[in-house]
Structure formats: structure tokens, C-alpha cells
């Protein structure tokens, strides 16, 4: 073997490290520097943030959402020292998400096929919005249907849906039972999240007892699809029930949450579309 081939081989081996390190892209680095410069911050102030992102990437945490958070903070005129704790918290959520996912896969509850990064992002978001690691582990266990393991992206979406339900002041127990039922029934990721958001929008009706999670869960267990639940059975008589009707729109129906873009973000919540107060947590 001549030297160049040997070097290429070594480079390939190093590149395929087991933790699948993610590095900060040059584009992200440049954009962050541009924003830093526009805000009049020194390179040193922002370098600490970049270092944090780089270290997280070396552990296999996706750097894109972390870089996005830095950009967002700088764009909004937030001091780098105030961005730092927010970034640390985000990294912590990703680490927890990574641990929960790895554990669930190793215990045979979760299927590791599919997009790991999207799953990690979804789980981190769920944790930041108030789902706990323990609840996610339980969901991985109870969400297994006849088909066996829960796909990792479905687990992430289920966890996020649970977090949204908790924001809607649905008890963790009821929320988890509903989400687990959705997972067992093979709900698509977008379906689960849409159902959770619709329940959140109708939060007062649940709190006043005009709607209850148990009846929604019963419908899910009978195979009712999410977009039919409020349209067919608007128990309250007060809502239009058409917000869940995504399927009728050609550009909305049937696609999985996030599609192929991996578009991801930080999450918290508000209970209503027109912003009458909000819950949720920072991410």
C-alpha cells in the first residue's frame, strides 16, 4: 500500500468515529461572526459560545440547532454572556435526549432506524417543554404496538405531544396514556402533535369537564384518526372542530412531521393561536 492510500484510509477511519461527531459548519460560523460583528461584540465573547457548540458536536449532538440558538440570541441583541446559560441548558437537554434514546434502543423498545438527528431534536424539545426523561422512557415501553418497537422519530414526536398536553394542564398520566395509545395505533408524528395542539387549544373545555382525555383516548383506541376526532365528535358544541382537518388540504395531509428538512427549533408554548398567554419552556 502506498502512502497516500494509507493516509486516505486513516482519514476515513477517523471520520467514522462511533459517536458520529457533528461539526459546526463554516456557514454557521460565518453567520455567527457576521451577527457578532453587527452587534459590536468582540470575537472572544462569542468564541466561548462557538467552543461550547463545537464540544457538543464532538459528543454527537447536532450543532445546527445550537448554532441557530446563538444566531437568534445575537440577532435579538442578547449579550453573549446571557446566551451562554441558554445554550448550556439546550446542550443538557440534548444529552438527556441522547441517553434516553440510546437506553430505549438498547433495551429493544425503540427502533433505531430512521433519522436519529430528528429524533434527538424532537426529544430535546420535548424535554425542554416539560416532559421528563422518566416519562419518555415509560412512553417507549408503553407505546409499543403489535408491530413491535416504536420508531425513534415517533417516540420523539410522542414525547413532544406529551409535553404539549402537559402545557394544556392535562395530567402527565392521562397525557402519557393518550400518547401511548396513539403510538400503538400507528399515528404519524404530525398526527400526534396536531392532536396534542388541538387539545391544548381547547384546554378550557377540558378543564371545565366538557371534554375529557379518556373519551379522546377511547376514540384513538378504536382506530379513529386524529383529524376526525374533533370534527366528528365535537362534544362541546362550542368549537368548530375543523382545525384538525389537515387531510383535506393537499399540501398538508399525510406528510410526516418535519418531512425531510429537519427544520427544527426551540419550543415552548401558548395555548392559543392568537397568543392569549403562554406556557412552555425555553429551549
Amino acid at each position, binding site marked *: 500500500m502506498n502512502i497516500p492510500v494509507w493516509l486516505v484510509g486513516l482519514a476515513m477511519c477517523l471520520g467514522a468515529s462511533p459517536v458520529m461527531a457533528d461539526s459546526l459548519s463554516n456557514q454557521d460560523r460565518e453567520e455567527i461572526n457576521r451577527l457578532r460583528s453587527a452587534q459590536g461584540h468582540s470575537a472572544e465573547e462569542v468564541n466561548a459560545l462557538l467552543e461550547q457548540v463545537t464540544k457538543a458536536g464532538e459528543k454527537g449532538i447536532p450543532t445546527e440547532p445550537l448554532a*441557530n440558538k446563538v444566531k437568534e440570541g445575537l440577532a*435579538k441583541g442578547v449579550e453573549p454572556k446571557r446566551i451562554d446559560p441558554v445554550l448550556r441548558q439546550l446542550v443538557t437537554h440534548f444529552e438527556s435526549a441522547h441517553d434516553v434514546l440510546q437506553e430505549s434502543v438498547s433495551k429493544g423498545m425503540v427502533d433505531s432506524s430512521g433519522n436519529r438527528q430528528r429524533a434527538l431534536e424532537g426529544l430535546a424539545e420535548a424535554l425542554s*417543554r416539560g416532559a421528563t426523561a422518566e416519562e419518555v422512557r415509560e412512553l417507549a415501553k408503553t407505546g409499543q404496538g403489535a408491530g413491535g418497537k416504536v420508531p425513534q422519530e415517533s417516540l420523539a414526536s410522542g414525547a413532544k405531544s406529551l409535553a404539549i398536553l402537559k402545557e394544556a394542564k392535562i395530567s402527565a398520566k392521562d397525557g402519557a396514556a393518550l400518547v401511548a395509545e396513539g403510538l400503538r395505533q400507528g399515528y404519524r408524528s404530525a398526527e400526534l402533535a396536531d392532536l396534542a395542539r388541538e387539545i391544548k387549544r381547547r384546554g378550557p373545555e377540558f378543564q371545565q369537564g366538557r371534554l375529557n382525555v379518556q373519551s379522546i383516548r377511547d376514540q384513538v383506541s378504536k382506530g379513529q384518526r386524529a383529524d376526525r376526532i374533533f370534527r366528528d365528535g365535537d362534544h362541546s358544541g362550542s368549537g368548530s372542530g375543523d382545525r384538525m382537518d*389537515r387531510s383535506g388540504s393537499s*399540501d398538508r395531509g399525510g406528510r410526516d412531521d418535519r418531512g425531510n428538512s429537519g*427544520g427544527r427549533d426551540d419550543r415552548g408554548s401558548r395555548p392559543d393561536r392568537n397568543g392569549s398567554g*403562554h406556557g412552555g419552556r425555553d429551549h
Partner: protein
Amino acid sequence: MHRIRLSGTLRPMMSGLRIAMVSLALVVAMSACASTIKPDVPKPVTGGVRFTYFAPTANTVYVVGSFNGWVKGATSMKREGKTGIWIAEVMLLSGEHTFMYLVDGKEWVVPPLAEDFVTDGFGQTNGVVIVR
């Protein structure tokens, strides 16, 4: 069959009335068109997602979010006549994106209407646009 013959003075009157009616119809049609654009949650339209924001006194409005790397000037909104409504249509990948409006280059505004809202960790709230 009888034909009514209009007198010399009545004919111009009828013609004027016709013009007035056509004008009225046009005004009604135009107001109907204008009323179709109103502040709403970001909606999918042909060619992207339409953002609408009501800011009658603003000089510039930008929609800024994760989809444009939080770059302030990346996506400007256009004022819709004198309605006070600003509009931008943006191509977005499927998924969920956070955003805010930036008014006159300095005021970050929480979107009044969005499918969901999230706190940003810095004390503000982002709107969430979901592209399915």
C-alpha cells in the same frame, strides 16, 4: 312587442346610472378583494407560506426566524396598500420554524397569530409556523 323609447333627457340619465352602478360594483368587488387579505396565522399558499402582520404606522417590517438564520434583513414584508397589513410569502421546508416580526429595524414583535408559540430563552416568545 312594445319598445319603450327613451326621451332625449332620460337616455343620458340611464347611461349615467349604468356607469354609477358599474362603479359601485367595482368598488364592492375591490373591497371584497382587499378584505380577503387580513392578519392570520401563517398560511400555505402557492409558492410558499404567507405571513401577514398588521402594522399601520410601521416603515419597515421583516419576518425573521430560524428559516432565514435570524438574519434581520433577509425577508422583508411588503405593505398592502393602505390597509396597514404587511405581507411576505416565503418558501419554507416542511417542518417547524420559529419566527418573530422586526418592525422598523429595532422592535422585535411577538407574532399575534401563529399555530403555536414558544419561549426563546431570552425572555421573548417566538411564533411557530408548521409546514406539513
